[in-house]
């Protein structure tokens, strides 16, 4: 079967391609400008403060990093789980994973109080810090995926694809667990004090990463006039539906376990009932827009077959995912720390009251710049290297159309 799938770089030299490149480049530059503005003046120009210490940039950054590891899933399904229909999708999956991670890390680093000390961060390690471990997990992930891509794309190395893919798969699980643990390790903040945080991040990554992948796949095939068959697309969108449902399940489990523990009742009340913006983002953003609506769209018997609807469903999953990150990251900080249980507290530093946070423009621009970095990398890479299959028409993806879609793993000749 593999013999049928040819990969080809983007040959189209039209204004469309360069227009896209220019647009993304401009957004990246604006993002870098915003970062410079923040560093030059100091963080007082942002909405972040000593209470909400991680703000909008972190929402974007963590989202991108989580999505990055999820984007690799498609490749993993192909090489680790032997579903041969997914194999032609694998190179783009690895590429997107690297690109999203690069975008997320760029945002994270550019938001530091001292991005100029990046070298310090690389040379001084506190091995007790989960953050330091993450730095290694992230850089390692890039290296592992590059090797994996090489095994996939270099015919002579193909025989190593499976072990490389397996390794990358394990690494990505570690990476998302590590990212989730950044929050899990914060014992003092009620919202984060839950063991379920890390597995929840893993399942979130599946969903956000696949949504991003489907969008990039659809766009790149459409714009380069390649054929994307219904078969493979429907398979992906059904998988996305499963992941979206799984995220909802984990969110439910998270809140139910929290409700069991009496000491977490007030933070639950805050998120679920009277937390203002956070409650709205939770119910409307995360649950409705990011969960129930896309689920209905993806599984609708007729609408679910429309490409526009599938595309929108992916976009909603991403938007809802951002809302979820906002609720977790910002909401978790906004809820007051409990220092004196049973006491009403007040102080000159907002003790006992919900911290307020209004993200400012540079924060958004930096975050969006990170997304643009990821997309720019993909756009350039598909032009210089053969990441995209020439066609994913039904007949090519699965020549034995008679056999059912379950994907009996056919070992390619």
């Amino acid at each position: 079967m593999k013999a049928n799938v040819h990969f080809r770089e983007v040959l189209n030299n039209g204004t469309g391609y360069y227009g896209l490149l220019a647009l993304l480049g401009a957004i990246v530059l604006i993002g870098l400008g915003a970062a410079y503005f923040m560093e030059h003046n100091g963080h007082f120009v942002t909405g972040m403060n000593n209470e909400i210490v991680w703000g909008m940039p972190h929402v974007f950054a963590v989202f991108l990093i989580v999505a990055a590891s999820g984007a690799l899933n498609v490749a993993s399904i192909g090489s680790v789980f032997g579903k041969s229909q997914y194999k032609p999708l694998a190179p783009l999956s690895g590429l997107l994973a690297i690109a999203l991670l690069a975008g997320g890390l760029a945002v994270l680093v550019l938001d530091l109080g001292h991005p100029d000390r990046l070298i310090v961060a690389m040379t001084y390690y506190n091995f007790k810090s989960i953050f330091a471990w993450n730095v290694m997990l992230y850089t390692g992930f890039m290296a592992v995926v590059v090797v994996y891509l090489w095994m996939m794309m270099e015919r002579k190395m193909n025989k190593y694809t499976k072990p490389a893919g397996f390794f990358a798969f394990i690494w990505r699980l570690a990476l998302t667990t590590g990212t989730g643990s950044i929050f899990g390790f914060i014992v003092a903040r009620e919202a984060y004090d839950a063991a379920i945080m890390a597995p929840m991040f893993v399942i979130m990554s599946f969903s956000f990463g696949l949504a991003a992948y489907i969008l990039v796949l659809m766009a790149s095939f459409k714009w380069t006039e390649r054929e994307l068959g219904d078969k493979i697309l429907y398979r992906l969108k059904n998988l996305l539906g499963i992941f979206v449902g799984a995220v909802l399940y984990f969110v439910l489990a998270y809140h139910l376990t929290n409700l069991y523990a009496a000491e977490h009742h007030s933070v639950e009340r805050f998120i679920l009932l009277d937390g203002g913006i956070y409650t709205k983002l939770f119910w409307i953003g995360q649950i409705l827009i990011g969960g129930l609506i896309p689920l209905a769209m993806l599984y609708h018997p007729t609408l679910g077959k429309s490409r526009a609807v599938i595309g929108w469903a992916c976009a909603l999953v991403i938007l809802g995912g951002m809302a979820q990150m906002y609720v977790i990251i910002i909401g978790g900080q906004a809820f007051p720390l409990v220092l004196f249980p049973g006491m009403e507290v007040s102080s000159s530093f907002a003790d006992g009251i919900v911290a307020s946070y209004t993200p400012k423009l540079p924060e958004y621009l930096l975050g969006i710049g990170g997304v643009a970095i990821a997309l720019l990398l993909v756009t350039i890479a598909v032009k210089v290297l053969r990441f995209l299959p020439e066609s994913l028409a039904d007949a090519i993806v699965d020549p034995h159309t008679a056999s059912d879609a379950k994907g009996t793993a056919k070992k390619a000749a």
Partner: protein
Amino acid sequence: MTHKSEINSSRRQFLNGSAIAAGLAIAPGVMLHQVAQAKPADQAVTSDKRWGMLIDTNKCSKGCDACVRGCQTENGWGENETKSGPNQVAQWIRKVELRDTSTGFTKSLPLMCQHCEHPPCVDVCPTGASFKRADGIVLVDKHICIGCRYCMMACPYKARSFIHEDLQDQLPVAPRGKGTVESCTLCVHRVDKDGENAIPACAEACNAEGHEAFVFGDLKNPNSRISQELAKHGGTQIRADLGLNVGIRYRGI
């Protein structure tokens, strides 16, 4: 620094950082010359001591913020941050008012870095900029802090501040810099100079008001005043349930 070999590692780290930084500008016009290194070189920072404070909230008066102002004057924070918003300005120490919702009983107390024995800020810091000296004082090495603010996320007491703007007019005892995190140093420069007899600026200011709510001293020395008072009257740790074994103890809450 002739007896360098005797100086324990965290102390050395602190001094090295400052040595590198000597002559380095951390903000326009501000040069770091000496960083809390007034301690005589023949006395190493040792784990034989653990510095702490006992705060008697019964003596602390509502509405009084002498300790906060004393700290500001001593360490030069709060006044020179003109552009930062209210929650962006540094808060090394703050006054917190408590009211028991069931009885209406009220209390007032100062809150600052609690100098945890097991400090979450140190555990999470990726670079090791947050560190605990052998004598229990928790500090930030401003020269390797990358400003990630993870320590602020992890601190249960909201004791840390991030510097949101360029600073002028810093004091030599407390170098500060945009983009780094800082917190109460337990007036480490005074402790290193006067040891057992040191009086942190907050305590000094409180004494000057006649309240005398603070007792500073060595928790490991059974004969120190702080140990004796703790032995006699006991003391509470805020959020003792977290098991951080903090160095700042309270009475009357």
